[in-house]
């Protein structure tokens, strides 16, 4: 009965219009470099003032899901990720485009985003209380190991020398030290510049190292041979085959996305990184990664959208934001009288069911609207480079300006562009730099606060059951290559010389 009532709530014309309008809006904003899914939702807040409660939440749900998917589009077509959640696998998707398989890459992004979103929603429906209990058992000790594991993904994802990847990541961590947003509240490395007090936001850094450095590269390289001018093939044609072939990675991506999404403070960005790294680690075709291989796209694409849905679990049950998007959504929920808390599930079950339906609906209409968007966006491949690049540069300036109406971020974008360009030329992976900037404060915050809480004792870091498991995983991952190396050294002489070719 409640379910029927919920369907009636969603079928109201104002809700349907809101879903459609915010879907288009989310697709457009997510695909613009510099405008993240968070930004897309933040800008919707004043609009929700005038909407009914269900319509208001529907706009947030729909726009954020669309924006996370459409962040894949510029990443795939131009090697410029639209949102930080796409940065992990941008190189892979772009490599597929260069091989003339843009539709496969974009289709995988779309199809597995939708699947991830739906599986994530199902986890929300079926396991919300269990997942919430898990999230609440995470203290700063566990978060420290989690963030540390996230950082280690940098070395796994990179195609270049692992030492350079670690160096890039450390550089990112150092950049994250800037400002006074650290546990001590002390300004660090601000050089008296007030703009630096708040630290360096990941968005200008991301736009700089990916988009601006791409424009810089265009300035000094001859125009790449044009892709054969042909009709864009069917976008969904091969997805079913991919689903069957990479069933296991897909499920792993979904599950990891759900787990990371449920944990407050770790969102879609981290889910994509961890899943891509996992995919590479456990793949039977590791050597193909980075050369245009869809396996990682399947896993990470599913993962970041699954995390988006499960991120609502702690928000709805405890009012604790799972990521920045749900932080905004919580404000809207309160404003509309849908106060988060267990009572929302019991007293307001109707509205809860309506939210579930909207989640599923948003992920279903993502497919046709996404196809349209992909078809339009792929025209970019046909336009001459001299027309695209300057426009992207202007968008970088406006996009970074938009987050805080601060010209300083435009300057930052330029500086990060130069840094990214130099790094890229010398074999330092820029994605690792972005990961360092995104994760830096999380690592430090949880490390320092854990030490404060334990009065300087390191034992609780491994004593608590969950943190013990995470610590073992971290050390295992750290020592694994060393173990393999020693094993090879010991075994080496006995093996015939030819086997080194592996």
């Amino acid at each position, binding site marked *: 009965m409640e379910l029927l009532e919920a369907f009636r709530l969603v079928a109201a014309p104002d809700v349907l219009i809101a879903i459609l309008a915010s879907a288009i809006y989310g697709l457009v904003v997510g695909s613009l470099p510099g405008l993240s899914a968070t930004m897309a939702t933040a800008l919707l807040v004043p609009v929700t003032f005038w909407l009914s409660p269900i319509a208001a939440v529907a706009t947030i749900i729909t726009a954020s899901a669309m924006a996370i998917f459409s962040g894949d589009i510029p990443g795939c077509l131009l090697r410029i990720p639209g949102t930080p959640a796409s940065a992990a696998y941008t190189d892979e998707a772009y490599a597929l485009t260069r091989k003339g398989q843009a539709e496969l890459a974009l289709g995988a992004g779309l199809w597995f985003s939708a699947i991830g979103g739906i599986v994530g929603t199902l986890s929300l429906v079926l396991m919300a209380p269990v997942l919430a209990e898990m999230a609440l058992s995470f203290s700063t000790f566990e978060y420290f190991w989690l963030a540390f594991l996230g950082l280690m993904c940098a070395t796994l994802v990179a*195609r270049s020398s692992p030492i*350079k990847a670690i160096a890039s990541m450390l550089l990112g961590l150092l950049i994250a030290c800037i400002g006074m947003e650290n546990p001590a509240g002390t300004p660090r490395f601000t050089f008296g510049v007030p703009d630096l007090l708040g630290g360096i936001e990941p968005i200008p850094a991301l736009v700089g190292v990916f988009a601006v450095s791409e424009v810089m590269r265009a300035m000094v390289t001859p125009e790449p041979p044009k892709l054969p001018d042909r009709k864009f093939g069917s976008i969904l044609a091969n997805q079913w085959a991919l689903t069957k072939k990479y069933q296991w990675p897909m499920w792993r991506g979904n599950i990891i996305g759900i787990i990371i999404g449920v944990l407050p403070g770790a969102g879609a960005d981290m889910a994509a990184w961890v899943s891509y790294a996992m995919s590479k680690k456990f793949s039977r075709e590791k050597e193909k990664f980075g050369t245009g291989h869809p396996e990682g796209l399947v896993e990470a694409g599913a993962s970041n959208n699954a995390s988006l849905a499960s991120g609502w679990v702690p928000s709805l049950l405890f009012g604790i934001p799972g990521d920045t998007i749900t932080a905004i959504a919580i404000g809207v929920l309160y404003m509309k009288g849908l106060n988060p808390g267990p009572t929302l599930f019991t007293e307001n079950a109707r509205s809860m069911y309506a939210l579930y339906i909207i989640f599923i609906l948003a992920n279903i209409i993502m497919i046709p609207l996404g196809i349209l968007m992909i078809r339009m966006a792929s025209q970019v491949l046909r336009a001459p480079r001299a027309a695209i690049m300057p*426009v992207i540069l202007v968008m970088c300036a*406006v996009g970074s300006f938009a987050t805080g109406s601060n*010209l300083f971020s435009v300057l930052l974008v330029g500086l990060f562009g130069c840094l990214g360009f130099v790094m890229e030329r010398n074999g330092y992976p820029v994605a690792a730099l972005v990961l360092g900037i995104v994760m830096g404060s999380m690592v430090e915050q949880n490390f320092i606060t854990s030490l404060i809480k334990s009065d300087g004792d390191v034992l609780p870091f491994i004593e608590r059951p969950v943190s013990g498991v995470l610590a073992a995983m971290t050390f295992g991952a750290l020592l694994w290559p060393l173990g393999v190396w020693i094993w090879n050294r010991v075994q080496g002489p006995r093996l015939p010389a030819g086997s080194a070719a592996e």
Partner: protein
Amino acid sequence: MQLSDRVTGGVLVLLGAAAAWGGSRLPAVPGQEVGPAAFPMLIGCGLILCGVLIAVGIGRSFEAEEAPETPHPWWYGLRALVPFALLLFYVLASETLGFVLTAAAMILVGALVLGARLRLALPLAVLMPLLIHLAFYKLLRVPLPDGLLSPPW
């Protein structure tokens, strides 16, 4: 800007040393045993280690070979700085000139440097700023400066 690993490794060592030194000078905070200095110093030491390893050339074998570059006159590399210069121009000029004029200038220069004909660059420089302005100013309500020339909306 292709530099040898010796140079980039050396730069990292210097940067790490600077970070560790700068971090060590940060004041302690009452009530916290591990102050704000610990993390920068740790990162600084890590950077020094990585820098040394890179400069010595450990782990080079993992890297993919790059395609040889075609020879260019010495100033050709400087073209890479054009986007940065254009962004700097935006920072300095957008408040006075306004968004539309600044963006038009950026697009015109950028397109010409990339080898576009005037036939393509001019219409692009006129139309795109207006479109972007419409999208960001009206739809996303970003307060883009008007300056000398404000669009009709």
